[in-house]
């Protein structure tokens, strides 16, 4: 593009005579004037959208809030899962001392009378976990007895629930002792 000081189209641009001649040679000042006009022309061709930063900030804020919510929900779920797991583990540990119905074991004395007692009908919902899970007392021929407390603790929610249901059904057919 050749430089022609007279060529400035300056459509709409305010005339700025003498504006850029501060100490500059005449030709350079004219060049500066042409730069000014070109900038004005470009700006008219592509006007700015002044609302854009505010819109962007609003979206960014919404997105950030959504992200915080998502992470909070995830953290809460994890907390519930861990808490539930710990609660179940605690229940499992306390169950024998708690006097829940315990299935008779051939090696067990079987209550105060030395005889197996009938399950307490007043406590139908209590599941004899320790009768189901023979921790270290494996019974030969029964592969289910190899399940340990650790295995149960490793189970996730749905598996644990299914396992509990199965054992609850089985407990009806098993002898248990309640104190």
């Amino acid at each position, binding site marked *: 593009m050749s430089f022609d000081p007279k060529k400035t189209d300056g459509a709409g641009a305010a005339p700025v005579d003498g*504006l850029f001649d501060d*100490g*500059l040679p005449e030709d*350079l000042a004219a060049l500066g004037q*042409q730069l000014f006009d070109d900038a004005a022309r470009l700006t008219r061709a592509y006007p700015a959208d*002044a609302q854009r*930063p505010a819109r*962007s*900030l609003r979206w960014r804020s919404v997105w950030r809030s959504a992200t915080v919510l998502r992470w909070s929900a995830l953290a809460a779920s994890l907390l519930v899962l861990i808490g539930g797991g710990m609660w179940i583990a605690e229940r499992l540990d306390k169950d024998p001392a708690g006097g829940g119905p315990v299935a008779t074991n051939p090696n067990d004395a079987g209550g105060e009378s030395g005889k197996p007692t009938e399950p307490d009908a007043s406590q139908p919902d209590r599941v004899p976990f320790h009768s189901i899970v023979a921790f270290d007392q494996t019974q030969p021929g029964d592969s289910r007895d190899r399940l340990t407390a650790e295995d149960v603790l490793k189970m996730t929610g749905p598996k644990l629930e299914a396992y509990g249901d199965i054992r609850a059904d089985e407990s009806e057919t098993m002898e248990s002792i309640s104190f």
Partner: protein
Amino acid sequence: MDNVEKLDINQASEEHFARIHRAALVMTGNPWDADDLAQETFLMFARKADRFEGRSSLYTWLYGILLNLVRRERRSWGMRRDKLRVLWDNESNQSKNIPAAETSIEVTEWKRSLWSYVARLPDGQRDALVLRFSEHLAYGEIAEVMGCPLGTVKSRIFHGLASLREMLSREEADVKDVPKYPFEDLANVI
């Protein structure tokens, strides 16, 4: 710190977005990059508003942010530009002379302006010319934005304009060297 408390992104963008966008436009040459850079300037402003101490005008501070962003972008563009240049050099001369059908009006508009030549100048000269002739800042304000003495600003503006004049003269000379009727020359050879 009263100034800081009064800073509001909405108000600031209403007042200064147009001028920041204009500066970004003349520096980048296309409206998309100008939009992105101007917007990024205000997002940066929103994040770092607490650092504004009110010793300078808000718009000079915004120009400072913009210039830093443009320099950062130019560094990342450098690598892409080099790759494009390799591709361009591998093209035949004929294809270079024929404008592509999809050549956008924006590019044409940019090529017609002197700012496409300013973009080839060193950072310091380019920034000084943009702030002076596009943004119409006083020398003192330019010195404030660029963080350099007043004399340096004057020198950069002078040498920037002189380089620009030199580029234009050289290009004009190149155009004169091209035969006006290349087919006549070809006919003489045959």
